[in-house]
């Protein structure tokens, strides 16, 4: 079996054996978005106005929360060490790790987002933009966040440090992601904004795993 397939298979198995890790970010996402109508106002006009930002911020934080444990378990049991002494580039196994992580934590967010958009009175035609922007944005968030997770893997309880490292890098994704939904709400064309999100994703996927691999090496070298 190739390194990519073997790693993807292992990570998916691990994810399915520890369902809490999949359910927690999804639960967080749904709860945060559902609390806004209670805290602010149930009025459809206001909620509709806030919905793009609320859903996107909640999705961003959900992805970030899921990343703290991305490499920690492997580090604690020595599997990360085995990854680092493996011959060949780390790009493929790291990419497989990130793909599996996104499939288990990011994709459920994309799938449930239209429901939350509907709940916050987003018009049905805007829901398409919502899930499309999240489909392009959440994998980019996973990859960018993984760089921070790799750098903080040897730091016990590095959650805050991870947030400090990663949040500034998340800003462009958030701006274009929430922006695309906002534009759709205003009836403007969104394909150009989605294209920027796609470009960020392409950049993240092509270069991100190298940065993650380097981060893991730096963390383990000390």
């Amino acid at each position, binding site marked *: 079996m190739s390194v990519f397939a*073997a790693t993807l298979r292992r990570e998916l198995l691990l994810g399915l054996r520890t369902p809490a890790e999949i359910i927690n970010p999804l639960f967080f996402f749904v709860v945060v978005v559902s609390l806004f109508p209670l805290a602010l106002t149930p009025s459809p006009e206001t909620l509709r106005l806030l919905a793009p930002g609320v859903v996107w911020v909640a999705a961003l934080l959900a992805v970030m929360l899921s990343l703290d444990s991305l490499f920690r378990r492997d580090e*604690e*049991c*020595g599997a990360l060490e085995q990854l680092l*002494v493996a011959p060949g580039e780390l790009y493929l196994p790291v990419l497989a790790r990130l793909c599996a992580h996104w499939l288990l934590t990011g994709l459920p967010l994309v799938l449930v987002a239209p429901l939350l958009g509907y709940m916050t009175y987003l018009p049905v035609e805007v829901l398409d933009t919502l899930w499309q922007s999240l489909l392009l944005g959440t994998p980019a968030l996973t990859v960018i966040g993984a760089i921070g997770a790799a750098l903080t893997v040897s730091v016990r309880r590095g959650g805050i440090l991870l947030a400090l490292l990663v949040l500034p890098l998340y800003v462009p994704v958030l701006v274009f992601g929430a922006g695309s939904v906002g534009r759709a709400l205003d009836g403007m064309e969104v394909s150009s904004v989605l294209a920027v999100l796609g470009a960020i994703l392409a950049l993240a996927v092509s270069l991100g795993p190298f940065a993650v691999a380097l981060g893991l090496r730096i963390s383990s070298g*000390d």
Partner: protein
Amino acid sequence: MSPTTPTSPILRVEQLGCERDERILFRDLAFQACAGEIWQVAGANGTGKTTLLRILAGLHGFHDGRVRWQVPGARHASAHDQILFLGHLAGLREELTAQENLRWLCALHDQPAAMIPAALSAVGLAGYDDAPVATMSAGQKRRVALARLWLPGKAVWILDEPFTAIDATGVEMIEQRLRKQAAAGTLVIYTSHHRLATDTRQIHLGGQGA
């Protein structure tokens, strides 16, 4: 203490030094190791045995001096593809079975996954292929990790405390395996307080130097 051997060394360590938290673990460490030799890294706790092995395996970049591998058949100068490194952590995820853990490690390290069942029975874990590692005892977990010693394809073994948590018969079995594999041309470098009942070379860390 570099012994003269007819074959040329596949590992040359020159002026190796390492500091940790402003404390010198070792300095000016030099030795040459050839294929088929067994080296024991000895020393008291905290003298840098694990650090030395991690440097040799390429995991620890912050050191002085040089480590040069010249392993026949290695694709890179780092010789990563010819090194089997087993750290003091087993590298196994508790949620996965012995077989699943080893299959991933095999894919990662170019070792044949088809031989995993045979390797597991060689370490006395026949029938445990599909047992989650979480249900195993400490000794059994260590045996799962050590099962990789029964998979072919590596010219250098770097083993950190391989005998931890292993019972007497297990220790004997692993010793035999190390001897047999060294006789077949593998360079074995290990740390342990246990001295093999065979011709091993020693590196003493702490105090008297190399």
